[in-house]
C-alpha cells in the first residue's frame, strides 16, 4: 500500500496523501486532540467559578500566570515567577512551589507541550500560518531562531534593572485568559498584532522566533523523556508535508536525514502534526529512555 504511494508524486495538495491513506480523522487526530486540550484547560478556568458556587469546590482558580488546583495545589508560570525573583522580591512559598510543580510537569511531558497543547496564543499563530498556507503567501526571510533566547535574557534582566516585572505588561500569553476570565478585553490588541506579524511579515515569527515563554519551556523540556521520532525515516518520500506544517521545521531534517531518528531538539513543540500529515507513517511519539512506543490512549482508541 505504501509502496504505491511512494511512487506517487505528491503535488496534488497539502496532506492529501495522508488523508487518503489514513482517513480524515487520523490525519487530523493530534490537531483535534490538542485543540480540545487547549479549550478544556481554558474551560476549566472559565466554568470553575460556577462550579464553585454550585458545589463549593474550585477546580482551577486564577489564570495561567498563577493558579490554584482544587483550592490547594499551587501552579504558577515559571517565567512570571522568575521575573518576580529577579526584581529582588521574595514571593510567598506557594508561588515558587507552583513554579516548580509546573516546571517538573513540563520537564516530564516535554517543555513545549505547553505551547501546542495549552497556550492560547498558539491558536492565533496557527490560524495565521493556516491562512498563510491557504493564501499561498511566500515564505519570507527568516529571523534567527535563537532571538527568543535573547528576548528571554532581556525579560529576566529588565526586572533587575527596573524593579518592575516589565514583560508582564505586554506578555501575550496571559492576555487571552485575562481578557475572557476578567473582562480585560482591551489587551487583545497584542494578539492582533502577533497575528498580523505572523501573517504578513514573517512566517511563524512569534512562536518560532521570539516568545520568551516558549524559549523557557523549551529549556525546561531538554530533559523530557517524551519525544517525536522518525521511526520509519526510510519510508519518507520527500513529500515535504511535515516541513510545511511543522512550526519549527528546522528540527525535522536531522531526524529524517541524520543518524538519529529521534527529534531531540527542544524547539519541537510535540504538537504531533508531523505524525498526522505523514502518509508514510514516518513519525511516532517515543520514550527517549527505552525507545518504546508510548501507548497514547488516544492512539489505542483507533
Amino acid at each position: 500500500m505504501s509502496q504505491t504511494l511512494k511512487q506517487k508524486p505528491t503535488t496534488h495538495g497539502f496532506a492529501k496523501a495522508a488523508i487518503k491513506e489514513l482517513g480524515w480523522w487520523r490525519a487530523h487526530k493530534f490537531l483535534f486532540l490538542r485543540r480540545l486540550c487547549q479549550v478544556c484547560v481554558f474551560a476549566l478556568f472559565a466554568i470553575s467559578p460556577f462550579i464553585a458556587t454550585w458545589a463549593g469546590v474550585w477546580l482551577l482558580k486564577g489564570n495561567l500566570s498563577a493558579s490554584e488546583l482544587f483550592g490547594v495545589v499551587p501552579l504558577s508560570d515559571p517565567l512570571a515567577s522568575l521575573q518576580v525573583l529577579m526584581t529582588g522580591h521574595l514571593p510567598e512559598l506557594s508561588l515558587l512551589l507552583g513554579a516548580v510543580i509546573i516546571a517538573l510537569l513540563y520537564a516530564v511531558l516535554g517543555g513545549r507541550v505547553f505551547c501546542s497543547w495549552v497556550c492560547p496564543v498558539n491558536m492565533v499563530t496557527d490560524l495565521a500560518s493556516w491562512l498563510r498556507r491557504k493564501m499561498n503567501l511566500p515564505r519570507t526571510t527568516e529571523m534567527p531562531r535563537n532571538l527568543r533566547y535573547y528576548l528571554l535574557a532581556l525579560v529576566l534582566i529588565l526586572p533587575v534593572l527596573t524593579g518592575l516585572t516589565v514583560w508582564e505588561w505586554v506578555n501575550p500569553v496571559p492576555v487571552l485568559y485575562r481578557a475572557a476570565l476578567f473582562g480585560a478585553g482591551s489587551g487583545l490588541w497584542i494578539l492582533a498584532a502577533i497575528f498580523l506579524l505572523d501573517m504578513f511579515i514573517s512566517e511563524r515569527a512569534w512562536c518560532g522566533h521570539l516568545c520568551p515563554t516558549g524559549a523557557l519551556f523549551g529549556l525546561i523540556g531538554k530533559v523530557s523523556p517524551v519525544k517525536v521520532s522518525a521511526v520509519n525515516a526510510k519510508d519518507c518520500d520527500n513529500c515535504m508535508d511535515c516541513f510545511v506544517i511543522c512550526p519549527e521545521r528546522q528540527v525535522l531534517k536531522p531526524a529524517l536525514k541524520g543518524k538519529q531518528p529521534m527529534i531531540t531538539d527542544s524547539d519541537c513543540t510535540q504538537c504531533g502534526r508531523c505524525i498526522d500529515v505523514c502518509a508514510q507513517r514516518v513519525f511516532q511519539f517515543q520514550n527517549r529512555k527505552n525507545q518504546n512506543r508510548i501507548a497514547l490512549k488516544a492512539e489505542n482508541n483507533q
Partner: protein
Amino acid sequence: MSTVNQSKFAAKGVNRRQFLATSAKATCAMGLLGMGLTAVAKQSSQLDPLAIRPPGALSEDDFLSACVRCGLCVEACPYDTLKLARWFEGAPTGTPYFTARNTPCEMCEDIPCVKACPSGSLNHELTDIDDSKMGIAVLTDEKNCLNFKGLRCDVCYRVCPLIDDAITLEMQHNARSGHHAMFLPKVNSDSCTGCGKCEHVCVLEEPAIKVLPTHIALGKTASHDTYINTEETTLEMLNKGLEL
C-alpha cells in the same frame, strides 16, 4: 595541508566575525526593545497614580515588582470589589485595584484576598483588617460637603466601619446662622483603612470625601526638618526643668 588549515582558519575568522556582528546586532535590538518595554511599563504605571490597591498591598513600586497578575485575589473577594485592570484603565494592566465609589472594600475579617495572593504582593503579615492601609480618605471638598453647610448629612461618618476612630465629627459654631452647630467630618489618617465606604455613600453627585493612595494623601517630613524634634526637645527640657 597548510592550505586546509588556512581555509579552516579563514572560515573560522569569518564565523567569528559573523558571530560578533550578529551578537552586536541582537544586543542592540534587545537594548532598544528593553528601553521601549521599560518606557511602556513606567509610563503606564504612572498613568493611574490614584489606583486603590487591595488590603495589605506593598508600596506601589514593590507591588508592581511582586504581583504576577493572576487574579486570585479578585476571585477570592466575596464582594466583587477587586478588578484586574484593563489596558490604560484604572491601574497598570492586569493588576488588581478597586474603585471605591462603585464598590468599596467590605473589610472582611479573614481577609481572603490577602490569603489568596501567592506572590506576597499582598502582605501576608496583615492579619487584622483594621490595620490595612489601602489608602486614606480625604475630605477633598469642604465647599459642597453638606455637613459644612450646616446640615446633618453624616452618611460618611455613620457608614465608617471604624466610626469615631477613623472618622469623627468635630462640632463647630455655625457662624452663618449664629446659633447652630456644624458637624465637620474629620478623617484620622492613623486609623483610616482606606476601605472607601465613605466615598461610596457620599450623597453628592461627585463625592466630597475621596480615598487617595497613601503616598498621595499623606505629607512627608523631610529628613532634615527637625522642628518636630525641636518641639520634643523643648518639652523634654521643660519637663526636666520642672523636675529640678
